[in-house]
Each structure stands twice: as C-alpha cells, then as structure tokens.
C-alpha cells in the first residue's frame, strides 16, 4: 500500500478569495504576524502496490487533467509517501 500526495495551489498572479478570507480572520484570533495566506488543495491517492514511476506519472497526468485547472492553478508537487502507521509509536514519520 502506498500513497501519492498531490499538492495544488492557485497561481500566484490570481487573487485567492479563500486565502484572503482566512487572512482576515487570523488577526481577530491574535495571529497578527501572518501578512498573507493562500489556500490550496492536497489530494491523497492510494494505490494497493508500491508507488512506482508509472504510478507517479499517472498521478501527475490525473493532476493536470482533472485535479487542477491549469488556467488558475499550479500542480506544485506529486510525490510518493509511505503510509505512516500512526498506531506504532516507534515510527518517526515518513522517511522522505
């Protein structure tokens, strides 16, 4: 079992209304130190086998055809992540 993580962000030149809304709320809670907030999307795609190069290529293809709209968004990363076993306290989190 492996997991592919896809991160997508609104393009820098495009106003991000959701990020702006979050930015407006932060100072009201005392978080005045953050000058800007941008909000993106994270997808977790699970595969039964290992995250091979083919799987990553397919994930990238899915990212540019369905998961993102290239007019307004950038795919900032497509990467494999071994599934962390949260129950096991000896696990120090994903290696890479």
């Amino acid at each position, binding site marked *: 079992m492996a997991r592919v993580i896809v991160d997508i962000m609104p393009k820098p030149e*495009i106003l991000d209304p959701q990020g*702006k809304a979050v930015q407006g709320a932060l100072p009201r809670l005392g978080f005045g130190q953050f000058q800007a907030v941008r909000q993106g999307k994270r997808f977790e795609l699970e595969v039964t086998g290992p995250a091979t190069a083919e799987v990553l290529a397919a994930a990238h293809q899915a990212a540019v055809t369905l998961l993102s709209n290239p007019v307004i968004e950038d795919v900032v990363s497509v990467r494999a992540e071994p599934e962390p076993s949260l129950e096991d306290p000896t696990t120090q989190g994903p290696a890479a």
Partner: protein
Amino acid sequence: MIRFGVVTFPGTLDDRDALRAVRLAGGEGVSLWHGDRTLHGCDAVILPGGFSYGDYLRAGAIARFAPVMETIIQAARGGMPVLGICNGFQVLTESHLLPGAMIKNNHRAFICREQPLRVETSQTAWTSAFSPGQEIVIPLKNQDGQFQASDRTLAELEAEGRVVFRYQGWNPNGSRHDIAGITNPAGNVVGLMPHPEHAVEPGFGPDSAAGARAGQDGLGFFTSVINWLSAGAAA
C-alpha cells in the same frame, strides 16, 4: 421546429427554466441526461445553471467528463450552437471549448441581482437578435463568477471581438475586463454567468421600463439561435 437540448447533471437547478424559456421563444425543449451519449436529434444545446456534481473539486470540473459532454464537445467543434449559463459556462471553460476560468467572487459572497449587461457583438449564434452596444437586464446569481484569464488570452478575446457581454454600471464579482460572457472563434459556443432563462416571461423577469418584473431580455438568446439555424438552412 428547432430542438434545444437542455442537459441535466446531478445538482443542476435551472434545467426546467431553460426548457420553458426555449418553448416561450418558439423552440422545442428536449431533456438530455448527463449519462446520455446521444443528443436525440437536437439542433442546439444548453448547459444550464446549478451545482453539477455538487461543484466538488471546482465548479464544472466533474461535469466536464460526463458521457453527454463527450458528444456535446464533438458537436460544438462541428458548429452546433451551445450555450453555457452560469454553471454551464464553468463546464464550457473546464471543457476548453471556451478559454479562461471562474473563481470565487472577489467579495467572497453569493450575489443575486438584476444585472445590466452590454451586448458587445451580435456575431454569435446566441446574440444575433441583439444589436451591438444594446443594454439588457437579466438576473445574476452565483458565488464563483469571477472570470479569470491570462493577459494573452484576454488580449486575444478583445482583438477577435469575442467578448460577448460586459457588466454595466458595476462589476459584481471582479471579472477581468468586466467580462460577463464570451464566445469561441466560430461564434457557435457562448458562455455567460447571468441567466437569460429567468427573463423570458412577463411577471417573472427583472423590473423593466414596461413595469415590475416585466423584463424579457432573455428571450433574444433563444430566438437568436432559431434565426441563426434557419438562416443557415436557407443558405
């Protein structure tokens, strides 16, 4: 009689209104289901407003891959008149039949108002009944209505006369160049955020000079197609 197909996706809201608008304009309305692969002999297609597939992921992003869209995309490339209204406009941009994309309104709120528009061109299947520069008023109601496109795309749209409608008086959502609607190079595919199908019948439209709720400026969209197709058949 011209047959207008009106697509229903899961989450579509305005399909019945669009079917009624088509009938009031003198056409025949045909319901199309998102799972259909045939257009049942339709001469034109309307993608109505709503929240297709819950608008999850992005507005229109999942609807764009519905079986009926494959057929519609082919037909649109072949010249069939296609109108995308609100969510339907978002489906058309996601389908790459029209450039650009819609993001959340710049003020971040849902908006519902009677919206004045300037018709910029009558050289499309859906605006041939209007004159360039004509002002019309039809309802606008959405949350993701801010039209965005790259500088290069905007320059192309402007240079080729493909901006079909511009917001008049006040830009209600931050759309670039006040753009409310655009067309493809052939003029058969048009998308816009405001709703012509809600301004087709006295008593149920926007206020107008003729009286309260008397506005019928939306009718011209549908009579335009009837004229456009009839002229094509006669030519």
